[in-house]
């Protein structure tokens, strides 16, 4: 809703067309991320993974999606129906809104807002409301515990995500995503900012994984203790919304990482600078490398306890992050950045 307000200059038809294309691309992309996750999991556990539907199991998640669409929507009688039905839309809309601001190539960007990164942080802070609502309105104790854990976790780790991005904004001097990429024409920011940038990147990836509620931070839906966590009572398409939102959020975290640390659509050493449309492949390549990193985390580390999770954020990541900002400010002030 808010997105469409800002591009009032375009006519309504164009707006709807762009929205429909984005929705189409990203719901299919989300499905293939699910497939990728299953393949990566199988690879890490020395299994084959999905391999029956289509070549190499490529159509497996499509079939799953069709199954979910055709399933009956069940719910509990004693749930708060209005909030119960509203919750999945909160989660999916807030994650889809974030997609609009990414510059996939120099031209391929739906909405170049001048507060880009800040907008992303603002939108991501709304998604958690959907999870809290879903957990409470289901009238199920496991769902409620899952939702409370999610709230605690997201509020805590949002700080680290925000502060590590602010560290990089010190280098760029702008919040607009297209200009951030422009700055990186003289070296990706992770190279320009060297030591503090690498620290910021590590903090960002840890906090980003925690914010998407993925293992090893999946306290929210810890299968062994909470059933399915906040979406225990959801079925069919409403469950699919939560599921899809989780994967799109993973893509968003990786895409922010790509844009801010690894030069977005810029090619390494400018090797394909003369062919601008190749930018999309570089962008997606880098993004999927980061997505793979997050999947690697998931299938490698065991789950944290709640107290360990909060200790990690408040006693280690946050102080480290604040020191890191001071260090980065000093480096920018003294002009010690590496410019290629």
């Amino acid at each position, binding site marked *: 809703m808010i997105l469409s307000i800002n591009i009032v200059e375009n006519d*309504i038809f164009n707006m709807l067309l762009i929205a429909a294309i984005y929705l189409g691309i990203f719901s299919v992309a989300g499905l293939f991320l699910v497939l990728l996750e299953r393949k990566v999991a199988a690879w890490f556990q020395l299994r084959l993974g999905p391999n029956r539907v289509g070549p190499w199991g490529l159509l497996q998640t499509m079939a799953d999606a069709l199954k979910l669409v055709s399933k009956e929507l069940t719910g509990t009688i004693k749930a*708060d129906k209005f909030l119960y039905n509203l919750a999945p839309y909160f989660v999916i809309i807030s994650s889809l809104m974030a997609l609009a601001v990414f510059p996939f190539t120099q031209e391929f960007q739906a909405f170049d807002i001048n*507060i880009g990164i800040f907008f992303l942080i603002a939108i991501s802070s709304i998604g958690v409301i959907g999870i809290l609502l879903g957990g409470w309105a289901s009238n199920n104790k496991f769902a409620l515990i899952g939702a409370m854990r999610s709230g605690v976790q997201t509020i805590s780790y949002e700080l680290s995500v925000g502060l590590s991005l602010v560290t990089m904004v010190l280098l760029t001097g702008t919040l607009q995503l297209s200009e951030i990429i422009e700055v990186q024409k003289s070296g990706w920011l992770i190279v320009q900012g060297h030591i503090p940038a690498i620290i910021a990147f590590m903090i960002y990836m840890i906090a980003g994984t925690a914010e998407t509620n993925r293992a090893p931070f999946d306290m929210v839906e810890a299968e062994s203790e909470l059933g399915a966590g906040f979406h225990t009572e959801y079925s069919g398409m409403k469950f699919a919304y939560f599921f899809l939102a989780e994967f799109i959020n993973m893509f968003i975290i990786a895409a922010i990482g790509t844009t801010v640390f690894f030069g977005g659509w810029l090619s390494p050493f400018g090797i394909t600078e003369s062919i601008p449309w190749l930018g999309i492949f570089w962008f997606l390549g880098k993004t999927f490398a980061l997505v793979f990193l997050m999947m690697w985390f998931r299938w490698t580390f065991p789950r944290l306890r*709640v107290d360990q999770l909060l200790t990690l954020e408040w006693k280690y990541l946050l102080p480290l992050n604040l020191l890191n900002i001071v260090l980065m400010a000093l480096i920018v002030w003294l002009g010690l950045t590496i410019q290629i």
Partner: protein
Amino acid sequence: MERFIFYILAVILIVSAIASVSSKKMLRSVIYLLFTLCGIAGIYFLIDYNFLAAIQLTVYAGGIIVLIIFSVVLIHHIEMELEVAKLSKKIIVGLACAIGLGVFLTTIYSHQFNVVENYNSVTTEQIGLKLLSYEDGGFILPFEVISVLLLAAMIGAIVIAKGKKMEDGRPKSEVLNEDK
């Protein structure tokens, strides 16, 4: 087009504000309040003041509403409903609202609002420079005062959360675990 969007936002704002105070279920009221705050953010976006809109979304929608939801979820069960207020209370509140609305409307209609020509959107850089400037019209003093206030609030919260010193014979680690 802009007028059209403004009216949509205004309807969302008014309807959800009324729903927020008239709903009998506490968490629903909070969600209607959230819609109101998002509508205000929408109006900021509409007048091209993106920074304030994002602040509105982060601080109010993402921060304060989440905290309110937390406190409601902790104390409120799904089957509880709020009591309907007594008629005398309703009349008093209605009168207070009418007086407030009257003050607002007379203020708005007694002033002439001029259309600003060639309006430039404020950038984040300008806001940052203004916030830290100590020259005329700079905001460094309020900025520092607010940061001291926040620090005091944070220390207060920690002192409250820390609780009493160990005297009832339990090991200290047990108390610490409870606090977390």
